[in-house]
């Protein structure tokens, strides 16, 4: 078991009170697993991704724990967490286009970063990895501004995985890219895993069709809670949570036409996370809701490797 997360809660501090962006999340990630973490805006998927490596200024760790390769991961303690970063847990950020220091040559920046983490510069390995993502080694002698968007994205992917982390968090890495580069980037992620450069991976995304292409499992979040986790095929073909079902059936696929088959969205809006309702948070939009939904449904395993938080699915 690579990663075990136990009842993790992370809130955002705002003027109006705490936004309960991540409100009690329990799951685990196996060795070699690529997990797609899907959800809409405000579902808490990005918060979950970030909280496993570094909480930003307004995020507060309220409770819960994480364990990586049998060691306790001190997610709430910025300082104690530092030895794990880069070595054990790494991140490909959403802002890959601006993630590199604009006034340093890339190779030198990587050297300085490595040295600051107590690792000897590894020029040869770096060049090999740069080649692996289809870049020539001379990008290391260039400044970030001299690279195209796709090149920067790939370079950041190389940097983030340089120390072969156990867990890689890829946060919306494809969302700013064109269709064709999306595919290349997604395939590179797959290759990182297949070559054992990273042990397991959480791919945070709002695009289920994309993550379906590369993920072993998909975990769907809604309003700060887990809704469903299963293998990618099960999530796409036989989801059990009403939210997942509605979400999947609202996606137009190539071949589906308005005239022939009219797709439906999900009416309503997600609840405010300042003061979320008790019980199931999807209740107000759910076509299957009944009295019991006023109680919070547990995130329970309904079949091997398939967990759902819904009374109807149990």
């Amino acid at each position: 078991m690579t990663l075990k997360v136990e009842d993790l809660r992370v809130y955002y501090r705002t003027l109006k009170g705490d936004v309960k962006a991540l409100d009690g999340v329990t799951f685990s990630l196996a060795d070699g697993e690529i997990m797609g973490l899907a959800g809409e805006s405000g579902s808490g998927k990005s918060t979950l991704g970030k909280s496993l490596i570094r909480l930003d200024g307004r995020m507060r760790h309220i409770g819960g724990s994480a364990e990586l390769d049998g060691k306790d991961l001190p997610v709430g303690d910025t300082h104690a967490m530092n030895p794990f970063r880069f070595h054990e847990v790494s991140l490909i950020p959403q802002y890959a286009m601006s993630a590199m220091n604009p006034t340093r040559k890339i190779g030198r920046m990587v050297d300085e970063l490595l040295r600051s983490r107590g690792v000897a510069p590894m020029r040869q390995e770096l060049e090999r990895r740069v080649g692996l993502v289809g870049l020539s080694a001379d990008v290391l002698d260039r400044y970030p501004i001299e690279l195209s968007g796709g090149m920067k994205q790939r370079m950041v992917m190389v940097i983030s995985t340089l120390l072969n982390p156990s867990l890689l968090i890829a946060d919306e890495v494809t969302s700013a890219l064109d269709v064709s580069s999306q595919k290349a980037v997604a395939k590179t992620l797959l290759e990182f895993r297949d070559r054992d450069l990273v042990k397991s991976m959480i791919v945070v995304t709002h695009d289920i069709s994309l993550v379906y292409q590369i993920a072993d499992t998909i975990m769907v979040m809604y309003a700060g809670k887990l809704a469903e986790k299963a293998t990618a095929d099960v999530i796409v073909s036989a989801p059990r949570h009403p939210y997942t079902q509605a979400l999947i059936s609202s996606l137009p696929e190539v071949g589906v036409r308005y005239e022939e088959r009219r797709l439906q969205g999900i009416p309503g809006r997600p609840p405010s996370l300042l003061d979320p309702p008790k019980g199931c948070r999807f209740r107000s939009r759910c076509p299957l809701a009944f009295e019991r939904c006023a109680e919070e449904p547990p995130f329970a395993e309904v079949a091997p490797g398939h967990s759902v938080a819904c009374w109807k699915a149990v």
Partner: protein
Amino acid sequence: MLRLDRVSKTFRTGSFGGRELHAVREVGFEVAQGEVVSLIGESGSGKTTLGRMILRLAAVSEGSITLDGVDIARQKDYYRSVQGVFQDPFSSYNPIFKADRVLEMIRQRFFPSMGAADWRARVESSLAAVRLDPGGVLGKYPHQLSGGQLQRLLIARALLLDIRMLVADEIISMLDASTRIDVLNLLGELKGRGLGILFITHDLSLGNYVSEKTVVLRSGRVVEMGRTELVFGNPLHPYTRNLLGSVPRLHRRWSEEEDAPEEEATCFYHGAAGRDATWPGLVEAEPGHFVGCATSGTCAPALELVR
């Protein structure tokens, strides 16, 4: 109705216009009443520039855009007939004013003498057309509304005028999956009311869902266009095929199909050299289906497909 004829756009960049950038080159197609045309392209394809030219937000460098045979540059009150909605719902509203100000601006310019009751009725009927509850959106600030509500409100704004043509530039790409389909369905309903719609998108599956005609744009040129079922069902241009192959689908993984060979993917009027000089023009490969780069002897894959 709206017709583009060999439309080009050249931007001058650098100080005192030192360099030229060809954003759109010789693009021609037509949008009829009650028809959705999707304009598909990746970043840098010129699709947004085309939309802006149609909306008269950018000047046409060469060629002409006509509405019912009259050049749009010479039309008075053009915006009564043609309106637009843009990508980012949050940046479409001036953040310091209430959201319904976009409606009020239409009233000031186009209905200055309309009475309050008539106006109110007009607003309510166009809100009803986009399925918005007046109480839920009027008098609210943009940040109090969801992205989907904001985009609908903008469509309602366009409907206040008796428009015949709507340019929808990536209007759902920033919305959540569960709400975007409803806005897309709305476009379908509008075309049922006789509107012509230019739906600009980078997402092929969305274009396919709602449109009658599809225009695929690359580096400012049309590479393929025609009836949507033909373009998607029998893509002829290697670029279109590659694009379609890259679209992530549900129920079908990339690895199950062959990647397009490298040279097909990079074919752009037979490779890198002489792009402009040898643009072969569009050829009607089958009725209602046009493809660029099909007649030249050097572009074997595409040629074979046409045969």
